[in-house]
């Protein structure tokens, strides 16, 4: 065991996979010499050389498109989008090729690519550095989208992602890159993608969250507990595939569900979870499924961002409301 934050844990996962699989290559903007603007790839170029860990020209479409080419010809690229707001030049390559190549070629070609991307708000950043647009990616057939919320999960999920034969958008909650430290198992281990994790059992209400929102929910739970409300917290971990079973089981038990996301409300992940609750646990529901999400607005710049972001009070407000319903 070793104490690590999420940056260390991701770095460790990349290190382990670079060491045990020659087909793994890591590249993107500033990931080589500098080790990434968040230092997730720090030291890897020195260790594995510039052929395997390198800086690319500044072009996201080029990065993901070339990864598709590498992947169909036998490599396992792990590429970085520097920030969530800069993935869009690559959107065409993701939605038109990476997610479709297997289907298009009827299984002849596959695209084992990991697209790493820091996302999310609350860090007082410039425009385009704070969005949480997982829903639009979760909506793409053929693409997997995952989000860890702890260093331990980040490492195990990253190793699984690199070993997976699918294209995976690996969203890294940058707000908690360094904020959470915990003991992380040394060496290789995997965490299956597509499985949610019940973080704390409870009986009155199920709260589903992921990424940096898990911590906000935990804070709200402390206040809820003072009022005698027992919350079951589920860390979703995977936007797609989505773990219906774990959600359904929990909602059947508690009869209430709230989803907490950073992204905009309409057509969001929360809507999907509400629908799962309705489909899978309709007769158990004691209140309409609820959601705590961003507004359907552009993420405000830092001066106004606190209005937009989820915080323990916003979550508690909804917990109280739904329990009293």
């Amino acid at each position, binding site marked *: 065991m070793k104490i690590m934050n999420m940056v260390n844990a991701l770095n460790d996962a990349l290190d382990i996979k670079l060491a045990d699989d020659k087909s793994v290559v890591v590249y993107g903007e500033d990931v080589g010499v*500098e080790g990434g603007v968040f230092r997730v790839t720090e030291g890897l170029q020195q260790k594995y050389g510039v052929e395997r860990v390198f800086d690319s020209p500044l072009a996201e479409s080029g990065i993901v498109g070339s990864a598709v080419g590498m992947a169909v010809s036998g490599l396992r690229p792990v590429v970085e989008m520097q920030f969530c707001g800069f993935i869009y030049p690559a959107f065409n390559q993701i939605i038109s090729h990476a997610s479709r190549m297997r289907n298009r070629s009827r299984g002849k070609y596959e695209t084992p690519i990991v697209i790493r991307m820091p996302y999310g708000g609350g860090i007082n950043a410039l425009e385009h550095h704070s969005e949480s647009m997982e829903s639009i990616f979760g909506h793409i057939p053929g693409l997997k989208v995952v989000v860890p919320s702890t260093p331990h999960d980040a490492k195990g999920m990253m190793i699984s992602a690199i070993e997976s034969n699918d294209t995976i958008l690996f969203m890294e909650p940058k707000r908690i890159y360094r904020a959470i430290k915990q003991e992380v198992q040394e060496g290789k281990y995997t965490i299956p993608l597509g499985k949610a994790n019940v973080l704390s059992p409870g009986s009155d209400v199920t709260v589903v969250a992921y990424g940096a929102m898990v911590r906000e929910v935990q804070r709200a739970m402390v206040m809820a507990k003072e009022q005698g409300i027992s919350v079951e917290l589920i860390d979703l971990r995977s936007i797609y595939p989505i773990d219906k079973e774990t959600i359904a089981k929990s909602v059947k038990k508690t009869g209430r569900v709230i989803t907490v996301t950073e992204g905009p409300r309409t057509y969001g992940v929360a809507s999907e979870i509400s629908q799962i609750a309705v489909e899978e646990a309709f007769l158990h529901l004691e209140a309409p499924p609820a959601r705590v999400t961003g*507004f359907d*607005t552009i993420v405000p*710049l*830092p001066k106004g961002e606190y209005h*937009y972001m989820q915080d323990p009070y916003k979550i508690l407000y909804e917990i109280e409301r739904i329990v009293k319903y």
Partner: protein
Amino acid sequence: MFKDYNPSDKKTFQVMNEEGKIVNKQHMPEITPERLLKAYKDMLFARTADLMTVSYQRQGRIYTYPPNYGQEAIAGAAGAIMRDQDWMVPAFREMGAMLAKGVTLKELFLYFMGNEEGSNFKNAKNVLPISVPIASQYVHATGIGYSIKYKKENSVVYAFVGDGGTSEGDFHEAVNFAGVWRVPVIFIIQNNQYGISTPVKVQTASESLAIKSIAYGVKGIRVDGNDFLAMYKALRESADICSKGEGPVLIEAVTYRKGAHTTSDDPTKYRTKEEEESWDIKDPLKRLKSYLIKEKLWSEKMEEELLPQYKQEIDRQFVEAENFGEYKAEDVFMHHYAETPDDLKEQLSQYNRFLQWRETRIKNEAKK
């Protein structure tokens, strides 16, 4: 001049050398001493503001900021040439040009304090807001060029991008479209040698960035971007070419980012002190100042007298920005649509109800 400095000849256009001596009389731009002096003062103002902004950031009074230090001659020359009716399409490292167009420091400060109001340039005509997604603004410049041509206006577009930006597809599409449409756009590449930590040689195998103009069938030139006079001359001639309907033009301005990429960046990770120092003698302000002093248009003493006034003015605008006022919940919801949809209005009301609940709750907590 464009003939004498064809990008395939590997030449860099210079008028004034590193000591501020005119080395290229033939191409000395026509510029009055008053205009030149004003340009220098504007650059000095921009540099002072830029350096002070970095220290405001260090004091925690603004968020992330991308310094302009070392690159001021490019924005300075564009600022000296752009007219009211011309368009400026910025990236994010050309403060001097924005100020020249009538953007106020207070607005820029507000922006870097994290308030969208800082992109609502009240008195500046035809300046787009700062564009963060690299090179995406370049295609807009081409579109504005089309409007100008379509409406037969007497106007030119000045578009900015960095060396790193030339790798994005948008850069190539913008210059290609502009070449096909023959629109009046001056594409200015600020080649400051790095895109964050990535050196130009990782961006392109081309001999230069200017040489890319040849592939698109547009005029191009590589200019010493730390030489104000060369930049002024190149832009002046480009503007004339555009006005005659013979644009677009691509200018590679060779410079060096003496500061960090942004206030969150640490350049020691990717470049040496020696390299940084080797650019000191090429400093754009020092060079122009030497020239002005030799021409008896300026003196160290005059500069010493001026600087405190500048600092005071900069600080005044900074404090004004700091006192701009509260960011209200409504401000988050404004300006998304011509008419705000009902659902969005409802989201604001819901949020206001929550705020009331929270206020009561926090009061009750305090009582306990």
